[in-house]
C-alpha cells in the first residue's frame, strides 16, 4: 500500500495537452476517484500511475519514491481495465494466478492464493472456465481477482462498471466497497458517473479538460461546489442554473451585479406546489417524471428551465401553472464568465 503524490504533472500527445499541471496527494489506503466527462484526461491519470504512459512533465511518487521512469512491472500496481482484458487463452484460475506466476510463486502458493481470492469473490466454482464462457459480471470478478491476488501497492480501476447492466452495477458497487474495507489497498478509481464516484469514494477529484476543478469528499463537492462545472456535474438531476435577475430581492455576495451572476439551485431543494409561496418562481409545467415517492417537475419560468421536486405523485398536465419554492439559504452564486463560485 502506498501514498501517491502528483506534483505539477502534465501529459501531452503531440500538440494536444491531456493533463495540465496536476498536483494532488492520495493517502495510503484511500479510495480516490477521478470523475469527469469523456476526454477529460482521467484515464490518462491511471495510465501514468500504472506506468503505461510517461508524464511529459512533473513528478509522480509512491511513498516519496520517484516512479516517473519505472516500467509497469517494477511498480507493483494492479489494474482493472474497462474491457477487463482477461487473457482468452487462460482459464479463470490461470488468469488470476498469472501475476503470482510471473513473480515466481510456487504452484502450491499460487493455487492457495487463487482459491482464497476466488472464494472471497464468489467465483470459486468457475476456476476451470475460460473467459468467453463467463457472463459480464463474472468476468468483472475475475478481473478484480487477478488484480487483488497479489495485494498490490496500488489498485487502479478504469470505468470497471460501465459494461454492466444497471442492477449488477449496484451490486458490484457494494462489492467494491466491501473489498476495499477488507484489503485497505490504496485505490484509484476512474468513472464518468458522478453517482458512482459519490457512492464509492473517500475523496473525489472532478476533472475537466486536463485540470482538476475541485477535489474533496463527496458531500463537500455536493454541498460546496467550487464552481459551476462541479455544481453541474455532481448531483442528479443536475443543478438548475438560472439568471439572477429572476429572483426579486437577492443579496449578492461581493457586491456583484445581478447581470453578471448565475444562480445555482439544486432540484432537490426546490419544492413544487400549486399554491403561491413567499420565495418562489412562478412558471408552467413542461413535463413530469415520476420517481415513485413523488415527481421531478421540469418547468419553464420566464423562458428558463427549472427542475424541482413535488411531493404528490399525480403528474400535472403540461401547461399547468406551478410555483417553484426555494430556500434563499440554499442558493449558490456563480460568476457568469468564469463560473467561479461567489461567496
Amino acid at each position, binding site marked *: 500500500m502506498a501514498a501517491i503524490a502528483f506534483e505539477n504533472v502534465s501529459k501531452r500527445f503531440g500538440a494536444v495537452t491531456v493533463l495540465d499541471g496536476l498536483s494532488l496527494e492520495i493517502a495510503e489506503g484511500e479510495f480516490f476517484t477521478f470523475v469527469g466527462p469523456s476526454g477529460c484526461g482521467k484515464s490518462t491519470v491511471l495510465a501514468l500511475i500504472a506506468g503505461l504512459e510517461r508524464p511529459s512533465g512533473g513528478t509522480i511518487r509512491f511513498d516519496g519514491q520517484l516512479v516517473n521512469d519505472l*516500467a509497469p*512491472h517494477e511498480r507493483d500496481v494492479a489494474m482493472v481495465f474497462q474491457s477487463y*482484458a482477461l*487473457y*482468452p*487463452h487462460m482459464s479463470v484460475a490461470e488468469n488470476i494466478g*498469472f*501475476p503470482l506466476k510471473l*513473480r515466481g510463486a510456487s504452484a502450491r502458493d499460487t493455487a492457495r492464493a487463487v482459491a482464497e481470492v476466488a472464494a472471497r469473490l464468489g467465483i470459486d466454482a468457475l476456476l476451470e472456465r475460460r473467459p468467453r464462457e463467463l457472463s459480464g459480471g463474472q468476468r468483472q470478478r475475475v478481473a478484480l481477482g487477478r488484480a487483488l491476488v497479489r495485494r498490490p501497492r496500488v489498485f487502479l480501476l478504469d470505468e470497471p462498471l460501465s459494461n454492466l447492466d444497471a442492477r449488477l452495477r449496484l451490486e458490484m458497487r457494494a462489492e467494491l466497497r466491501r473489498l476495499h474495507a477488507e484489503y485497505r489497498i490504496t485505490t484509484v478509481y476512474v468513472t464518468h458517473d458522478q453517482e458512482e464516484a459519490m457512492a464509492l469514494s473517500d475523496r473525489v477529484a472532478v476533472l475537466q479538460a486536463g485540470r482538476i476543478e475541485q477535489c474533496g469528499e463527496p458531500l463537500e463537492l455536493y454541498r460546496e461546489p467550487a464552481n459551476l462545472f462541479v455544481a453541474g456535474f455532481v448531483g442528479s438531476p443536475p443543478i438548475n442554473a438560472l439568471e439572477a435577475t429572476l429572483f426579486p430581492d437577492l443579496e449578492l455576495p461581493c457586491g456583484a451585479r445581478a447581470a453578471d451572476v448565475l444562480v445555482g439551485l439544486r432540484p432537490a431543494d426546490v419544492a413544487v406546489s400549486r399554491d403561491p409561496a413567499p420565495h418562489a418562481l412562478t412558471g408552467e409545467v413542461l413535463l413530469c417524471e415520476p420517481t415513485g415517492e413523488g415527481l421531478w417537475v421540469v418547468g419553464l419560468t420566464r423562458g428558463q428551465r427549472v427542475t424541482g421536486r413535488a411531493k404528490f405523485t399525480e403528474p400535472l398536465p403540461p401547461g399547468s401553472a406551478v410555483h417553484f419554492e426555494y430556500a434563499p439559504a440554499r442558493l449558490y452564486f456563480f460568476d457568469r464568465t468564469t463560473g467561479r463560485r461567489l461567496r
Partner: protein
Amino acid sequence: MTRSGRYVGVLLVALYCLAPLAWQLLTSLRPAGELTTLPPLLPTRFTLEHYVSALTGHPFARMLLNSFIAAGAATAVALAFGSAAAFALTKMRARRVGLLLAIVLATSMFPPIATVSPLYLVINALGLRDSLAALILTYASFALPLAIWVLANFLRQLPDELYAAARVDGCTPLQAFWRVVLPLAMPGLTATGLLVFIVAWNEFLYALTFTATERSRTVPVAIALFPGLHEIPWGEIAAASLVVTLPVLVLVLRFQRRIVAGLTAGAVKG
C-alpha cells in the same frame, strides 16, 4: 444465374483447376509402354513402377529431406523474427511504423533475379555454396516481408489492453510477447507459417543457383533438371512431381481456410 447454370460453372472451374493434376496422376500410373500411345486416355492397367524408380533410382529421399529442412528452418526463422518485428510495430511505441511497413512491403517486391548474383558471390566468399544454410537464410529473408505484413495485420486485431494488462500484471515486454501475445496470435502464426512454408518449398531460382549436388539440392531443382539418358522419363517425372506436391496438397486440404485467411490478411486489409 439459374441454379443449374451455377453448378455447371462451378464444375467447369473445378475441372479447369484439377485436370492437369489428374492427367499427371494418370501419367505417373501408366505403364512405360503406354506413355507414347494415345488413345486410350485411361491406361489399360495401373503400375507403381515410375514411383519405385523415381524414389530409388535417384537420391530423391535426400532431396526431399533437403527441401523439408530448408523450408522448415526458413519458416521457423521467418516466424520468430517476423512475429517479434510485427509485435514491435503493432503493440510497442516504435516510431515511424508506417515508413517501416512500407519498406518491408517494398522489399517483398524485389525481383529475385536482382539479388541472386550478389548473393551468389557472398555465399561463395563465405564458403556456403551448396549448403542448406545459404538456402535457409535466403528463404527466411524473402519470406520475412510476407510474414511481417500478415502477422502485423493479425496482431493489430488483438486488443491493446491485453498487452497493457500483461505489463501491469508484471510482464516484461518479452514476457508479454511470449506468454500473452504469441499464444493469442496462434491462428495468425499458423496461417503465416503455412504461406511461408509453401513459398519456400516451391522456390526455384535461388535453389538452382546456390546448390550444386544432392548435398543441398531441393526437389524443385531435381524435377527441373531431371536426368534422362536418351529420352525424357515422363513417367518418373510425373511420379516425382506428385511426391513433391503431396505435402503441399495435404497442407492445402487441411488448412485451406487458414491459408486463404493469411493471403487475404495481406491484401484485403492492407
